[in-house]
């Protein structure tokens, strides 16, 4: 398994080595860029809509960001493991769903700004809890969906 996952160390979605089907590394693949753009639109609108309808203050748990991040991590773990280990390489679903939708649905910068605001307001416990829960939750989401995809393959 490690030889399969080995090529994904740096950039599972973007690294040239993870795309053996790329016709020419020098040429820009317009369809791939269009897929990333379209996926980015979908992910951004979904995240922004949730953020607008679930506004939280610095003394509250940022449910909107927390939920999209865990959901996006789960979707990416499922998708990439499936593409990597079960299906033939399919660049466009990786570009659209992975780099586009999951990448844009989830956000790192918002988490950092939320943490700064919590710390500014001296809610240190909340900040530590939020950071820990995000990392643990995101990691668990990838772990579980990866396991699920691999188990499904074995029982087939």
């Amino acid at each position, binding site marked *: 398994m490690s030889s399969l996952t080995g090529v994904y160390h740096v950039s599972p*979605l973007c690294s040239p080595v993870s795309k053996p089907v790329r016709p020419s590394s020098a040429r820009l693949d317009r369809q791939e860029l269009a897929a990333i753009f379209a996926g980015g639109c979908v992910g951004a609108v979904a995240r922004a809509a949730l953020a607008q309808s679930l506004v939280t203050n610095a003394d509250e748990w940022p449910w909107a960001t927390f939920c999209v991040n865990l959901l996006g*991590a789960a979707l990416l773990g499922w998708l990439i493991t499936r593409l990597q280990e079960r299906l033939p390489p399919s660049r466009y679903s990786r570009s659209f769903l992975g780099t586009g939708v999951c990448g844009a649905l989830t956000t790192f910068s918002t988490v950092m700004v939320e943490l700064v605001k919590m710390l500014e307001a001296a809610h240190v416990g909340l900040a530590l809890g939020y950071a820990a829960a995000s990392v643990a939750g*995101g990691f668990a989401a990838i772990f579980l969906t990866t396991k699920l995809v691999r188990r499904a393959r074995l029982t087939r």
Partner: protein
Amino acid sequence: MSFLALWLGVGVLGGLGALARFAIDSFVSASTGARFPFGTLLVNLSGALVLGVLVGVALHGDAYLLVGTAVIGSYTTFSTWMLESHRLAEDGRRWLLGANIVLSLLLGVGAAELGRLLGGG
């Protein structure tokens, strides 16, 4: 700004944020090799810095939604950060896993705070 124009803007700008992430991540990953996910780290730290600046200059309302939530929110990514961390763990690279988590968190909060200060917040 009309409702439709605003949300079309969120979609288009979010798509551009995703393209910028892809471009920078691809470029950095190609030049740093496959040992550590520097591409995602650079994208996330630079995005945290810029979002901090936007908060520092007190951007709000539709402008923050379009530039902050749509562009910078899409530009940075949580899911890829977690996926790459998980794959490092699977390959037993514990130090790199720890570095990827701790460096991202500490430098990320530092970048957002620095941005906020630069923005005058």
